[in-house]
């Protein structure tokens, strides 16, 4: 089912066909990798320029969708704050035996602190589990789009895309 244009949420079907969505094999391997949830041809390419590994390609026509070379991607997360659409996340499924680490753009105050427990929300803003904040990065380069990394149970790593402070 295609749902983005009707309710603003990408369906599994839509996600799977994105050229910026890493294959499930790669995610399963557990190394940190960018997940680019950009599904529409809009004129935009800062993600491509932000990637020092050359893992994101848009090409001459900036209306192209970004495609990800998951093998080149190191999961550094520079693209998270660079994306004006806030559509890029980094998922590291094998962070610990039980937990995955997810990094998201978070442009709200107050910022959470490392160690803080927060609610983990899915693409519809529904609470699906608890999360623990691992790191908050807010360097000048991010230009006021802080990147928050938090842990959630492994099996939730492809559902959780936002957090709410308790």
């Amino acid at each position, binding site marked *: 089912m295609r749902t*983005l*244009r*009707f*309710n*603003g*949420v*990408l369906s599994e079907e839509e996600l799977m066909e994105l050229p910026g969505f890493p294959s499930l094999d790669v995610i399963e391997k557990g190394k940190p990798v960018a997940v680019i*949830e*950009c*599904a*529409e*041809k*809009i*004129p*935009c*390419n*800062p993600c491509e*320029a*932000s990637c020092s590994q050359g893992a994101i390609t848009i090409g001459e*026509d*900036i*209306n192209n969708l970004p495609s990800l070379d998951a093998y080149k991607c190191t999961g550094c997360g520079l693209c998270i704050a*660079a994306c*004006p*659409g*806030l*559509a890029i996340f980094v998922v590291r499924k094998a962070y610990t035996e039980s937990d995955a680490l997810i990094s998201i753009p978070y*442009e*709200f105050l107050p910022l959470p602190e490392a160690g803080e427990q927060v609610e983990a*929300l*899915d*693409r*519809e*803003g*529904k609470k699906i589990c608890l999360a623990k904040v691992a790191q908050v990065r807010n360097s000048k380069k991010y*230009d*006021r*789009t802080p990147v928050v990394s938090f842990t959630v149970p492994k099996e939730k790593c492809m559902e959780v*895309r*936002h957090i*709410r402070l308790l």
Partner: protein
Amino acid sequence: METELAVIGSGPAGLSAAIEAAKFGVKVTVVDENPKPGGQLFKQIHKFFGAEKHKAGVRGIDIGNQLLQQCQDFNVDVLLNTEAWAIFDNGKALGLKRGTDKIEKLSTKKLVLATGAMENSLAFSGWTLPGVLGAGAIQTLMNLHRVLPGQRVLIVGTGNVGLIVSYQLIQAGAEVVAVIDILPKIGGWGVHASKIRRLGIPIFTSHTVKKATGNGEVKGAVIAKVGPGYKIIQETERELKVDTIGIAVGLTPMAELAWSAGCQFAHVPELGGWAPIHNERMETTLQDIYVVGDVCGIGEASTAMEEGQISGIAAAESLGYLKRGKTEELLEEKRKRLDTLRGGPFATHTKAGKGKLMKRYYKS
């Protein structure tokens, strides 16, 4: 007062026109009725789309500051609190009102109209109650004056403006109860819709606002589902408890000055209604008057800046500051950039609309 190029409006289009012409030595004067320059840029706290050369990834507010710095660097005069109330002599002179009552004439050789657009309103029962605002007004209050217009907000319209303002309301600490649209699909970009859905804001398509309730101020909004012909489906009405209703149902070019000057117009729905006819150099049917940005078709700030630059280059050439060959080379580059920005499926309508306007120019 005298100048070579007068620009009315100091938004992204007007400032870009002014800077580009001034780069080649043109004496430029920008007038704006507002106390601060920048147009809508200083409300745009989000990062812009585009490529690096279109200032992608930079927040609107920072682009505004960059443009003002360039105006200083190239000695562009910016007259604020200055209303342009008439155009005389096919664009060769402007009537200005400076401050509260000082009337002055500004003589010029060329004129760029960059007067922008105004928000469309929506009439429904209770729409005149305090608490019903344009989405742009909400942005002005919130992002310029740091005043939150309300605590619980309904946004009507799912274009990019409605979606972005919803996100900014959450950033500012309000609650957005819902975003609705009468159309069956979301109007704006998926990324903007997704980022407010993650925050838990519902989007209801095929919904309309029937009335605002409350006595003396908004206390609620009755919304309902619509069926074929956009007719309300009985028994789908429900009241949302809100104190603010933000209307984001599009914009209309603010083209009164171009009308009064005698520019020819065309009605192009894709561009927001009546717009002054222009050619690829942004020249209107009056050869000394150019139009750029939203006044000649609702678009993005990024496309407004490109159009502004095109008019600045064209004006510099016609004033003798640029040679023909060099001008064509520069214009070609800018047009390519515009084409890129209008190359995606979301810009198909704008592109078609612009095509119609230009076709009319060559017929006239």
